[in-house]
């Protein structure tokens, strides 16, 4: 019953109260900020499945986000596909890319996995930047149609808000079921001690690939939403710094927590907007929030495991002599 009440409050707030307030304060700009927060909430929730729950530090999430965005943009501008096809296709294409790119890295552990995914993210970014014939390179893709359905709704701030909000809620539902279930326990076991998990009959490599595939699917959908709602994308949107931003949102919100991921996105994207009156000093405040949150809230606001312990484990694996250096057989 309590669960039912809290879910209805959440739905009411996201679907009625928030758009109401945004329209009342004059829409436009604040709608854009909110949809950006929504897109990054999906990204952070999905990255959280890999990093927070399965314990693999992924630094290439922006790359997968980019694959989703470019898939959507190309399908929508060249083939004129509607959003209800582009978004799922973008998710599936990204998941397939995620699996193919991740396969060779799955035996890597700890910091080595992080560096490999950093490399993957960079490869994707550089490809988007230089494959001019296909992606238009640094010029980016413009005039991507918004989210509209003939006779029902046309592309507008409020439509985009609802599209992002509903997909974010769906992502939270799916990722929530994956993490708060026995399946989630299996993923957490991989995070806590992968060798021990294997000796208890868990297919560790399989679990890692699955969590990567689910996370990439939602990163791709988030990319698609970004393309549709902004109308213009360029490789600059999918740089390494975006991966770090996603990681920072996860750390501030708390590893392994879905509400935490949303909270992290709200804080790290909302704060710079609220602080706009103080000009460029606001980025110092944002940096300070990250710095102090890791010092005084090592578990983040809502995390289930301490960031420092995850990092320590990641680095610790690098010089544990009893293990194969950097990878598992």
């Amino acid at each position, binding site marked *: 019953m309590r669960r039912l009440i809290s879910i209805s409050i959440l739905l009411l707030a996201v679907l009625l109260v928030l758009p109401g307030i945004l329209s009342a304060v004059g829409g436009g700009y604040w709608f854009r900020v909110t949809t950006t927060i929504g897109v990054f909430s999906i990204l952070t929730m999905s990255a959280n499945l890999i990093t927070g729950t399965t314990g693999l530090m992924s630094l290439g999430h922006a790359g997968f986000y980019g694959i989703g965005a470019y898939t959507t943009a190309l399908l929508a501008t060249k083939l004129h596909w509607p959003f209800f096809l582009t978004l799922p296709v973008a998710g599936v294409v990204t998941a397939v890319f995620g699996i193919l790119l991740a396969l060779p890295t799955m035996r890597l552990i700890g910091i080595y996995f992080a560096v490999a995914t950093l490399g993957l993210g960079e490869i994707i970014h550089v490809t988007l930047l230089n494959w001019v014939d296909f992606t238009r390179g640094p010029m980016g893709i413009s005039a991507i149609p918004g989210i509209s359905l003939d006779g029902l709704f046309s592309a507008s701030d409020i439509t985009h808000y609802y599209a992002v909000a509903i997909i974010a809620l769906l992502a939270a539902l*799916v990722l929530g*079921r*994956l993490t708060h*279930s*026995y*399946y*989630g*326990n*299996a993923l*957490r*076991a991989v995070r*806590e*001690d992968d*060798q*021990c*998990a*294997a*000796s*208890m*009959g*868990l*297919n*560790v490599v399989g*679990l890692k690939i*699955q969590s990567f595939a*689910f996370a990439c699917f939602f990163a791709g959908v988030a990319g698609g939403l970004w393309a549709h709602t902004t109308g213009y994308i360029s490789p600059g949107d999918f740089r390494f710094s975006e991966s770090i931003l996603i990681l920072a949102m996860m750390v501030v919100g708390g590893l392994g927590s879905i509400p935490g991921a949303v909270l992290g996105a709200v804080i790290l994207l909302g704060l710079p907007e609220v602080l706009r009156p103080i000009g460029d000093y606001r980025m110092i405040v944002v940096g300070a929030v990250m710095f102090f949150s890791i010092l005084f809230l090592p578990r983040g606001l809502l995390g*289930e*495991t301490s960031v420092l*312990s995850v990092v320590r484990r990641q680095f610790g694996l690098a010089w544990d002599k009893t293990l194969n250096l950097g990878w598992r*057989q």
Partner: protein
Amino acid sequence: MTPLLEIKNACRYFGGLHAVEDFSGHVKRGERVGLIGPNGAGKTTLFNLITCFTPLSSGAVFFDDTDISSLKAYRVARLGIARTFQNLRVMPNLSVFDNVSIGALGALGHSPLAALTKRTNYANDIGRRTWDALEQTGLQDHASELAANLSYGKRKYLEIARALALSPRLLILDEPAAGLNDTETAQLAEFVLRLSGEGLSILLVEHDMNFVMSLCERVMVMASGRKIADGSPQEVSNDPVVLEAYLGSEEEAA
């Protein structure tokens, strides 16, 4: 009837180090076997070979007539070999219940589809297995506590509970009595005896000789990677070769 576990000429080299060399041995169904030997004899390496944590350099391991030598560790676990670790490896950030559910997940499989469609039968099966293992080990009152908050002795039982949730046919215990006081050791021996009474085969490494001698029906002795003796506890404890391996030869002692 062939033995449940049969190790044939197992060898494992780490570079020039012969950690396990030409080891042959077996565990019969329902048997309690002890593996003893001085430090560095290769006991834990042998356990890692049996559970396919470490690949064999040569030789073979058969479990229930199946050659498991080239299988992945998780496949071996699913066939029915569960183990505990010398240095406890409980998952500190998970609750006791969640820790034990890992074993049940290993036995029943883990599909994301089951989570997405909320398959209740599957969840109930895992829940039931987990509770059974918790009750067997007397941890049911601690189910919701974080594993990190358990006492050392309780954590030992948590590891065993997690292994039992796999419903293994062979339970491998790596130094189960290390760090326990006499009362706790006696309780543990009684508990292992009860598991054995339920038909579970047990292979254990232990340095506490009273524990091994009172509990095990047969004892294998390892030194420098080789098996040097195999027999009943009485036979082994009077074997001059064993005494020499533990205490040094008589000439040296004199």
